[in-house]
């Protein structure tokens, strides 16, 4: 594949400049999928014919000299919890196995308007609950760097699809690390933007106060362009921000090398794998070499934070997933004598184990007598975390940290221990609790050739700084390793 064809910026530019046709691009990517998808299992559904038709329409427009959007001809994979009119949106759940949304999510409208072409819906942990994509009701996605390993989760299909050259861009959603962790495991760039930057309208809610949609790409520039397209206020999402967003994040001249960066020592504790730690510290040194000022700071990320996250996210999930009762849409049991049984049996039969666990946990922490001990405390914790971050960002531009304690783990390794799986989120959940933006990018590989991720955390709406530093680091590291399937 021509280098231009590998990236979002390359394709959008090339299609517009008639270096190649959108239809050509789609064909190439579809071919990759046909060849490798059986190994990877990145998609829940694909739409080859319609994607090709749409590409041809874009080519016609270009031939006629009409305006095409900023993502003209770019194939996109969409996590299957983002509503797409006319294409199934299953959330990787038996509950929504045949569910077709009558409307497009706002992000889908935006992508379509800019000429992007949806190639398929990607696999995920059921209702985005999980860190390995093993909780999908339909299939388990493999990590393209090592097929016996997990791609991470919950946006594992989206991450694997980008790393496998099935798409140059996919959408994920991140509630506690669900974009960043799979991005790290698959060696790509994943962004969880500031809460409120990208409309959640049409994202099937897991935990509304934490969920954000974000782009997953191969490099920083692609991530930037994608965010520029996806961001913006939406009158249909009352939590969406009304601020004026930066239109262009990466200008030619910037001085990332003059930034002050904080390294929170608690993110480098005993649980952190030594190779991961070394790789990140190596990147930090590279930045220091370029003049970036780096200080170690204290940012407690104790178990309390993880608890706060699991309390709040499960509480919200228990409520958000209550609508799946078999009455209006979704799975309906065949075994019932009355409405009560219809609801109970439909939910019991169609939800997977992890989803049920979280629903029950969330119900428990909200129930009479426990609300104050759990939900209220978690809420206070959340405020405390915001203040701690606020303190750091009053002195530093950005925070650097690992994304996960380890590289991609083996399939089946943690699936039977919920607590082990939850610990995967140790470095990522505080960002969601505070509503901050964070970017995950590849910073090296371990001895088994598995990618290692680095996390850049910024203050609210500081994506510009994050991108500048990430771009600087990316160009200095110049990692050329590619997936070989």
């Amino acid at each position: 594949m021509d280098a231009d064809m590998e990236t979002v910026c390359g394709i959008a530019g090339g299609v517009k400049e008639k270096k190649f046709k959108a239809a050509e691009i789609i064909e190439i990517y579809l071919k990759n999928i046909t060849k490798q998808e059986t190994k990877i299992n990145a998609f829940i559904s694909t739409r080859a014919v319609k994607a090709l038709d749409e590409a041809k329409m874009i080519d016609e427009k270009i031939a006629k000299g009409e305006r095409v959007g900023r993502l003209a001809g770019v194939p996109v994979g969409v996590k299957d919890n983002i509503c797409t009119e006319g294409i199934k949106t299953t959330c990787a759940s038996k509950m929504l196995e045949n569910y077709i949304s009558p409307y497009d999510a706002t992000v889908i409208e935006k992508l379509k308007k800019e000429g992007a072409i949806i190639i398929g819906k990607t696999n995920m942990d059921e209702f985005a609950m999980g860190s390995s994509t093993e909780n999908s009701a339909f299939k388990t996605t493999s990590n393209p760097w090592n097929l016996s390993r997990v791609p991470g989760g919950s946006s594992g299909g989206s991450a694997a699809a980008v790393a496998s050259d099935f798409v140059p861009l996919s959408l994920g959603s991140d509630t506690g690390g669900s974009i960043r962790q799979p991005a790290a495991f698959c060696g790509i760039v994943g962004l969880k933007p500031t809460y409120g930057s990208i409309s959640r309208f049409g994202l099937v809610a897991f935990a509304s106060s934490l969920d954000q949609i974000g782009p997953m790409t191969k490099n920083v520039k692609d991530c930037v362009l994608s965010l520029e397209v996806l961001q913006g206020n939406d009158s249909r999402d009352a939590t969406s921000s009304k601020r004026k967003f930066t239109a262009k994040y990466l200008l030619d001249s910037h001085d990332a090398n003059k930034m002050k960066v904080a390294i929170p020592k608690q993110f480098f504790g005993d649980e952190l794998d030594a190779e991961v730690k070394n790789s990140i510290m190596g990147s930090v040194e590279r930045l220091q070499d370029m003049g970036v000022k780096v200080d170690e700071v204290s940012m407690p990320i104790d178990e309390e934070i993880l608890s706060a996250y699991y309390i709040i996210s499960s509480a919200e999930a228990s409520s958000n997933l209550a609508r799946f009762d078999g009455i209006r849409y979704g799975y309906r049991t065949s075994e019932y004598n009355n409405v009560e049984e219809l609801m109970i049996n439909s939910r019991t039969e169609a939800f997977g184990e992890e989803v049920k666990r979280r629903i029950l946990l969330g119900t428990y922490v909200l129930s009479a007598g426990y609300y104050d001990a759990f939900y209220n405390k978690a809420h206070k914790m959340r405020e405390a975390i915001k203040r701690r971050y606020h303190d750091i960002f009053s002195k530093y531009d950005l925070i650097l940290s690992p994304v996960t304690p380890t590289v991609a783990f083996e399939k089946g390794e943690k699936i039977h221990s919920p607590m082990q799986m939850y610990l995967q989120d140790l470095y990522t959940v505080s960002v969601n609790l505070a509503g901050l933006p964070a970017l995950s990018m590849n910073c090296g590989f371990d001895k088994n050739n598995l990618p290692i991720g680095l996390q850049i955390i910024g203050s609210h709406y500081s994506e510009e700084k994050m991108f500048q530093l990430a771009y600087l680091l990316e160009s200095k590291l110049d990692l050329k390793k590619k997936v070989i399937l």
Partner: protein
Amino acid sequence: MNITKVEVQHICKLAKIKLGEEGLCKTTAEFEEILQHMKCIEKFDFEEEAMKSDKEGMQANENIKQTHEENQTLRKDEVVAFRNHEKLFKNTKDMKDGYIRIPKIIE
């Protein structure tokens, strides 16, 4: 933190999820472990943090109000019908004469 099977069963009732005897035992055990971890949040000392925030809080209150006010997204009271209404109930299992049908509820 001790959680009993009876409590888990009560939670199941609220959440409209059924667990068999085996599932009930397993879930109770898992909850035991998870809640053990979650319990740490109870010990967390918010007082110091709260003291600090109280002062800021007073000044912040007006700011918070202003931020909320600026961020408030409200809708005008205008009627707009959903454009794709014919597909709205495409996923519904049992519909008759425009109604969604379910087993009879005895009130």
